């Protein structure tokens, strides 16, 4: 037997799970794309991907979607992370690691300032 507060708590806890399946506002959302070809995975893209998702979850950010893609071309620069904020230029970061990923979320996604020192050269 649950109380109204219990139902509200379940809703809160489950929403972060199920939000992944809501594609309706995809065009208005921020997309972070991680290159996960063989090159990317070898260079540590999986750790970066997980760090991004974890940080978004800890900060309870809404409307940010992390997806994977295949090889992004500059294999030597992997892991590559692309940030697409609607209405702004696409930003590409190179040689990202878990710690840089957290910083990108903090400064770029939340703060709105591009982390210039991590930008890809090309």
């Amino acid at each position, binding site marked *: 037997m*649950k109380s109204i507060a219990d139902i509200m708590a379940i809703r809160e806890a489950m929403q972060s799970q199920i939000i992944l399946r809501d594609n309706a506002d995809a065009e208005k959302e921020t997309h972070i794309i991680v290159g996960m070809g063989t090159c990317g995975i070898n260079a540590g893209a999986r750790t970066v991907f997980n760090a991004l998702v974890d940080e978004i979850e800890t900060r309870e950010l809404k409307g940010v979607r992390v997806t*994977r893609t295949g090889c992004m071309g500059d294999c030597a620069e992997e892991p590559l992370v692309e940030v697409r904020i609607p209405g702004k230029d696409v930003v590409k970061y190179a040689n990202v690691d878990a710690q840089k990923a957290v910083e990108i979320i903090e400064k770029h996604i939340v703060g709105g300032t591009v982390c210039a020192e991590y930008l890809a050269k090309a």
Partner: protein
Amino acid sequence: MYRTHILVCGGTGCHSNNSGKIREAFEEQIKQRNLQDDVLVVGTGCFGLCAVGPIIIIYPEGAFYSQITVDDVPEIIEEHIVKGRLVERLLYHEKALGNKAVKSLSDTNFYKKQTRVALRNCGIINPEKIDEYIARDGYQALIKCLTEYDPQQVIDIVKASGLRGRGGAGFPTGVKWQFAKNQNNDTKYVCCNADEGDPGAFMDRSVLEGDPHAVLEAMTIAGYAIGSHQGYIYVRAEYPIAVERLKIAIAQSREYGLLGDNILGTGFKFDIEIKLGSGAFVCGEETALMTSIEGHRGEPRPRPPFPAVKGLFGKPTILNNVETYANITQIILNGPEWFAAMGTEKSKGTKVFALGGKIVNTGLVEIPMGTTLREIVEDIGGGIPNGKKFKAAQTGGPSGGCIPAEHLDIPIDYDNLISIGSMMGSGGMIVMDEDNCMVDIAKFFLEFTVDESCGKCTPCRIGNRRLLEYLDKITCGQATMQDLDDMEQLCYYIKSNSLCGLGQTAPNPVLSTLRYFRDEYEAHIKEHRCPAHVCKRLVRFNITDACKGCSACARKCPVGAISGEIKSKFNIDQDKCVKCGQCIATCRFGAIVKE
């Protein structure tokens, strides 16, 4: 925390195409690769595009894979899940875009024109997990009603929304609830009609399979509004998956205290029981349905008294269709103005249609009222296959009628459909092309109603049988023009004298085809000819001069009706011919024609 959700459709269509095995294969592969903490496999309800099932969707990308087999699973895991590359080969290919691969479901023409209210959770949540329903605002409407509104306010909201019954007749739902509330009685009942019986209709099944809690929640709200403590869902036993998921949903709701003696500690008491129907079409009629729940043979009784006054077990009862209930929670949460903003002047909101027949995208669609038939058939439905021409769409099942091509641009709502001689019905929509004979279609639906007539009243039991005999006579080319007039008279007689909705609407398919395709009837009678070449007794197979005398057809003919000499024209003995069409399929020169 899962990074990826793999949604596998578990509706009846995909399920019978092995989607259960596909889900198991994904689960197994994911375990093998040690990804079970990253990837969640979810069995869902119907996505709607049943024609290309089994369907899976992978989020967050929203990638839409169609016609998947168990053998495709390793490739999807390896490419999509591990390497992040879409498997182009398995993506849905949109015919309208020159067979281009479409990445996500929401990008398809099939989905773009849809508005999902009743189907909002179908294909998104796991119907067997109450927590996923709660995450999508489930049970918020009930909480709002129990804590913020008194029963009259709930009814006022439903009234203001303009919601009308989705079972077919279109009676205003709020008014129905008000009648029941006004009755002074300690015992009242809330019933749900899930006895979906129209040939080709599967809207209610899909809602029950994909989002059972939406129906339970709405019934509980209805119970609160009219002052009832017991609900019944009357569902056909032929819907095993729907029944199973309803049972699971009811058990979960009871466990969470969303059904029972003291719902969420508010003191409100309500419970729901499932009653299985045995597939009698007449039990979808409200009085017959209630008679059946009471344990008697499912026969209708005269109204009044209406169920809201004297219904189940002689107590005030409301009976709504599954889809009607599926709209209630959204009306409460988003407000009646939101709902009333969709649709036409007298028909608000959306309507779910089960699209079938001669159409590319067979499946389930939900459109705002007022969408035209053309948009449904051409844009959402993807048009008629094999380059054939649209002839008519049949709505309302055996109670409805045909809409011909001249009315393709009419906005669909309750009143417009009635004015052109059809009806909304529960939402079956069968598309017909030039190869369908309209007399034959009328005969098909009438055969159904003759079979399903309960036999209680004479106009329906005997009248419809006589009507069918007229149609038989016409399709055999033995009828006269006098028969056609007599038949039309009989239609009106049956309509005005039958006891219940079944008989009152049974002649509708005949009347509407007569109205729009009278020339076809006359061709059968006057010229002994079936223009669509369907009615076997009126079709002749002939061999033309294009015949090379190869004898392939003669060897194939099962009754030995074809004879001739090699290298000269063959002939068909019309007395022996059984019109099976094997010869046409065999001939390599197109020398055999149907006339």
